[in-house]
């Protein structure tokens, strides 16, 4: 302590002396900055309890004295870093030991000390150390009625408690009490905690409670705000648990609230909900437009504290504009014109002189402007607005603020894809090219490259490609590969003259050979092979390029391939006679890697076919020891085989075997796929047909451009020439669909679905409403790799989207594939996963039925006894009911049965059925088109124990299902469902369209095969 006091005084003096330490900071112009000032460290007895201060001071002390890191009070830089770290750790370990002993001690701690120690732990954690105790004490603090103790407890929990902690029940309890307390400060604390942790358990506990708080008339505004955002967070983590109900309309009406803070929070919530259920929140559009219009037209002082640097409610405006982006342009003409007016006003304001010189003013104003432009682009329907937006962005392109230039480039990228504004964007090409050359920040330059890529069309392709190529010479290494891909795509896409294309790609290889991926050079070969008008030129060009003293290996590959195919086209010229060609290629041979050498060997054998006069020379080369006894098996084999081939085969056979490559089939450009993968989806402006037709230059010769795609090169390079056109989509032979493990998955989502001696397939799946995601894990159980691995999912009723997988699984490795599943309407056939791969030369076909059943899309629903009865009785029509009576093979275990029913997907309703032995459940099946509520009831008959009693049950017993149990040793499972058109169970009286489907699912539940100990108990049989 003493040390610190001394230190503080000296530091104070020091910082006074060099008061300018922070003045040069970037915030200086904003008029606000973090000052280099020591805070008032309160003396003991101060009203504000600064519980950790002593400890923090001690810690800082050891770090300030030894560690210049601790603060800006970096007086002595001469101290060793390692030492300070040690001192800190030592100090902390001492403190941790102390706290641990305090917590473990016999003496019960009072609230104050508990708070103190929890706070210390929190501080230690925030310093980056691990904390593995104290959670219980923090949870205890929640039940304290002292505000500060509660507050620290909540803080600890929101910072430290992971969402899947065991303590969550206790925490939930504390929160529940505070939510019920009606004390707004306590309620806020509890809501903040839910929003911060946001775990599924919390969602389960509070998802139905919070909407009530939100729409209750007597809730304070601040609580409403917290509740809205809390609900938003829960909706993000577990959207299936947040019930949609009558409160939706009332939430929408919060947009009309007097309190702008409430409107801000509610807008965020509605935006999130509207993304999921646009129809339910359609009414919010008109309210949002009205609100926006009021804000936009208000004088800046009208909104008082919600005005931010002379901009009226910028956050709210941005959020409202964001909400409107969930919907198409309003159909109502009046509303539409009002919205257009708003957008025009925002655009006009951008032209007005700034009301303040502060950067905050312009930032806030432009934030709204950019969001408005985003909305204009989203609507893509008002040409005048689009062009105005484009002009506005054009101004920003030359703004002195780097941030604005960055954003303008980014926004313009999206504008370029709109047919209305594409031409307007093109007018800024010179500025963008200039930005590419002069910007100092690489991220801005990258945006410029993106924009050039997006604005490119046939009219300006040559210029843009040339600019990009010249930029490539100086570009940062981090973005070179991307630029290479972009140049390759543009050159291909907009090539009218294919000699230009060939030149461009060869240039590309020359400038940035290391960044030219295989896809790019495959592609140029594919195109040359498919277009015979360019073959001669290509051969000539590569021949010339290869004459450079040092050329990139990629060029050697392209050269080898093209000369091998089309060398005859230039052989007439004595400067490029066959022998010259061969010698040129062979001069590069020794500098190349094995795959390239293999390719060159193939080129040589093609030469033998093309030019019989060099046969002897080439045979000599092949026959040399360095080839025939090459250490590399692949090279050796090629040399031996090619040599034999050239010796034995007649000219005719040679000509047939070594015929020119056939044209490649049309496929999507693999380069484009690669760029998409690199940039992530959605980043690439879509340059597809819509745009091309705008430019009015669609031509038939161009239609083939998206041709051929190659499989990634085999690692040996051996099969390159052959594999180039092997397609991996040979039709799968009819194989038996494996459904062996299928029934196990009725009540669970994870496990092994298929296994043989080669392959194990594991599944892990999750479902939310009508969407599902399945992770498929392919495990290679052998020690050799699987080649040309591919998988596809066939489904008649479901939308199943599978991500592409690597074609190779190494031995002993596991690969993951993600399937996204959407349930469109009710279905009965499960999708089938077809897998194909090569193992040791043999093609393997496997088909596995994926366990996606209707009950996976169940969402549990809670309801009271009375509701249940009433609905049960309403659902009496024969097609609404499925009933099954079966014999239990094993003694009934209540817990197991409960677990099974929960696993089936419905909510288990306690205390609903008068007979406690019965199980009652309810759930809603979500499909894209409908939602169907289902009720379920399982009636065990415990009395009848005769194992062989197979007397027919009186299925028509009028008292069933609420009567007594059935005679005989039987269980009854009975479900009733009906089509719904709204939320919950009150809706139109309709019927489930194909009730038998549901029956299938229920049947499955009752026919579970033995699945370990748990399932065996519930093995049920008719």
């Amino acid at each position, binding site marked *: 302590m003493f040390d610190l006091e001394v230190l503080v005084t000296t530091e104070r003096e020091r910082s006074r002396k060099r008061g300018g330490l922070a003045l040069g900071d970037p915030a200086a112009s904003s008029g606000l*900055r973090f000052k280099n000032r020591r805070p008032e460290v309160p003396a003991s007895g101060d009203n504000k309890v600064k519980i950790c201060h002593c400890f923090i001071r001690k810690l800082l002390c050891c770090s300030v004295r030894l560690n210049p890191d601790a603060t800006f009070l970096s007086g002595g830089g001469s101290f060793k870093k390692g030492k300070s770290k040690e001192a800190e750790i030592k100090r902390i370990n001492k403190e941790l030991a102390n706290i641990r002993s305090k917590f473990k001690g016999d003496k019960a701690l009072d609230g104050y000390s508990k708070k103190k120690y929890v706070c210390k732990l929190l501080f230690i954690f925030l310093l980056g150390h691990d904390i593995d105790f104290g959670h219980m004490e923090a949870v205890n603090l929640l039940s304290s009625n002292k505000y500060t103790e509660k507050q620290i407890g909540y803080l600890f929990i929101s910072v430290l408690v992971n969402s899947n902690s065991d303590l969550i029940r206790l925490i939930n309890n504390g929160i529940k009490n505070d939510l019920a307390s009606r004390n707004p400060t306590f309620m806020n604390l509890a809501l903040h905690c839910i929003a911060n942790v946001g775990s599924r358990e919390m969602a389960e506990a509070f998802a139905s409670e919070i909407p009530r708080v939100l729409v209750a008339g007597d809730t304070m505004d601040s609580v409403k705000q917290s509740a809205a955002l809390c609900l938003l967070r829960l909706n993000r983590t577990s959207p299936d648990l947040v019930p949609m109900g009558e409160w939706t309309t009332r939430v929408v009406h919060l947009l009309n609230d007097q309190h702008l803070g409430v409107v801000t929070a509610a807008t965020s919530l509605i935006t999130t909900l509207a993304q999921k259920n646009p129809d339910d929140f359609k009414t919010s559009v008109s309210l949002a437009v009205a609100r926006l219009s009021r804000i936009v037209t208000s004088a800046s002082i009208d909104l008082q504290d919600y005005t931010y640097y002379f901009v009226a409610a910028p956050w*709210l405006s941005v959020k409202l504009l964001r909400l409107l982006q969930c919907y198409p342009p309003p159909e109502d003409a009046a509303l539409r014109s009002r919205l257009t007016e708003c957008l025009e006003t925002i655009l006009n304001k951008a032209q007005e002189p700034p009301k303040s010189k502060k950067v905050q003013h312009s930032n806030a104003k432009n934030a709204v402007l950019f969001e408005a432009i985003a909305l204009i682009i989203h609507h893509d329907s008002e040409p005048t607005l689009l062009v105005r937006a484009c002009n506005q962005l054009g101004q920003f392109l030359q703004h002195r603020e780097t941030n604005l230039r960055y954003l303008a480039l980014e926004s313009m990228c999206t504008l370029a894809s709109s047919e209305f504004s594409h031409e307007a964007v093109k007018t800024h090409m010179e500025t963008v090219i200039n930005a590419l050359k002069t910007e100092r920040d690489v991220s801005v330059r990258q945006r410029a490259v993106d924009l050039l890529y997006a604005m490119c069309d046939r009219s300006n392709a040559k210029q843009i490609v040339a600019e990009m190529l010249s930029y490539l010479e100086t570009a940062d290494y981090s973005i070179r590969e991307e630029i290479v891909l972009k140049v390759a795509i543009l050159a291909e896409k907009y090539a009218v003259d294919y000699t230009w294309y060939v030149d461009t790609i060869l240039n590309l290889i020359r400038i940035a050979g290391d960044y030219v991926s295989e896809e790019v050079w495959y592609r140029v070969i594919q195109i040359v092979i498919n277009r015979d008008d360019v073959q001669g030129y290509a051969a000539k060009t590569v021949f010339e390029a290869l004459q450079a003293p040092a050329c990139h290996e990629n060029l050697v590959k392209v050269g080898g391939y093209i000369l091998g195919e089309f060398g005859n086209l230039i052989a007439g010229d004595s400067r490029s006679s066959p022998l010259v060609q061969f010698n040129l290629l062979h001069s590069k041979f020794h500098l190349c890697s094995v795959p390239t050498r293999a390719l060159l060997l193939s080129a040589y054998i093609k030469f033998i076919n093309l030019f019989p006069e060099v046969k002897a020379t080439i045979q000599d080369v092949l026959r040399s020891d360095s080839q025939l006894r090459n250490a590399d098996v692949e090279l050796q084999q090629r040399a031996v085989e090619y040599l034999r081939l050239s010796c034995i085969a007649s000219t005719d056979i040679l000509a047939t075997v070594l015929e020119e490559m056939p044209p490649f089939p049309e496929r999507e450009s693999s380069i484009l796929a690669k760029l998409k993968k690199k940039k992530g989806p959605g980043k690439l402006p879509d340059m597809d047909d819509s745009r091309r037709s705008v430019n009015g230059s669609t031509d038939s010769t161009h239609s083939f451009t998206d041709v051929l795609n190659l499989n990634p090169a085999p690692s040996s390079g051996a099969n390159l020439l052959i594999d180039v056109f092997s397609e991996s989509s040979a039709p799968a032979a009819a194989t038996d669909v494996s459904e062996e493990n299928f029934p196990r998955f009725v009540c669970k989502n994870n496990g092994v679905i298929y296994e043989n001696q080669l392959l194990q397939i594991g599944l892990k799946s999750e479902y939310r409403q009508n969407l599902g995601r399945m992770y498929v894990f392919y*495990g290679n159980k052998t020690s050799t790799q699987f080649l040309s691995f591919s998988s596809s999912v066939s489904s008649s009723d479901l939308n199943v989207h599978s991500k592409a997988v690597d074609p190779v699984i190494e031995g002993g490795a596991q690969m993951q594939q993600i399937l996204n599943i959407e349930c469109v309407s009710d279905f009965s056939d499960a999708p089938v996963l077809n897998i194909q791969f090569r193992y040791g030369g043999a093609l393997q076909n496997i088909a596995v039925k994926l366990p996606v059943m209707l009950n996976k899309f169940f969402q549990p629903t809670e309801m009271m006894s009375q509701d249940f009865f009433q609905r049960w009785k309403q659902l009496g029509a024969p097609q609404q009911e499925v009933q099954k009576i079966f014999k239990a093979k094993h003694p009934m275990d209540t817990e197991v049965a409960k677990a099974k029913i929960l696993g089936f997907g419905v909510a288990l309703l306690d205390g609903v059925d008068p007979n406690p032995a019965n199980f009652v459940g309810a759930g809603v099946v979500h499909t894209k088109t409908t939602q169907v509520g289902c009720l379920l009831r399982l009636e065990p008959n415990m009395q009848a124990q005769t194992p062989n009693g197979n007397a027919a049950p009186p299925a028509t017993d009028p008292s069933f299902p609420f009567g007594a149990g059935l005679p005989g040793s039987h269980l009854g499972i009975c479900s009733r469902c009906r089509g719904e058109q709204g939320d919950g169970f009150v809706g139109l009286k309709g019927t489930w369209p194909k009730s038998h489907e549901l029956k299938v699912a229920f049947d499955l539940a009752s026919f579970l095969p033995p699945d370990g100990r748990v399932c065996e108990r519930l093995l049920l049989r008719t």
Partner: protein
Amino acid sequence: MFALVANQKVVIDWPCFWVVLGGSFLPRGVYTVLLFKMQFMLLFSRQGKLRLQKWYVPLSDKEKKKITRELVQTVLARKPKMCSFLEWRDLKIVYKRYASLYFCCAIEDQDNELITLEIIHRYVELLDKYFGSVCELDIIFNFEKAYFILDEFLLGGEAQETSKKNVLKAIEQADLLQENIDFQMRLFAAPS
């Protein structure tokens, strides 16, 4: 560590013999409804010391540490005149330096960068107002206050209350509550 124990449990639940852990960074893709606006907010010093962290997406401690480490390095390496936005993994990072502290937010690709920049500024204003010209040590000593103010202002990654007056009012009310209670405590404690 709590979080680690919990993670292990997840592993055991999964019966397959290999488990892919920590593969993807954030759940993305089919659930377009699961858009998170702000993903996290970090405050760190020029020396790279983390001063405050707020995560709006569930991540394991290991991932959090990894992200923090990478991001701090990336941001500290940038020069002062560079733009305040950068693409990082599949997120956008918005950052700003105030004296010795960097404020750094990660947002979704589609989000508004400028308004996020102003969120940072508003938070700094709030801290400044509450502490009376704030400095880094204020945040070290009163880290809990910094968190409370952040919670009042931002919740679940969205702006909750953008009015400076209202946020400060809420915080002051809480302080008042605390002082009253302390006062009462002392009153009761006095006789003994």
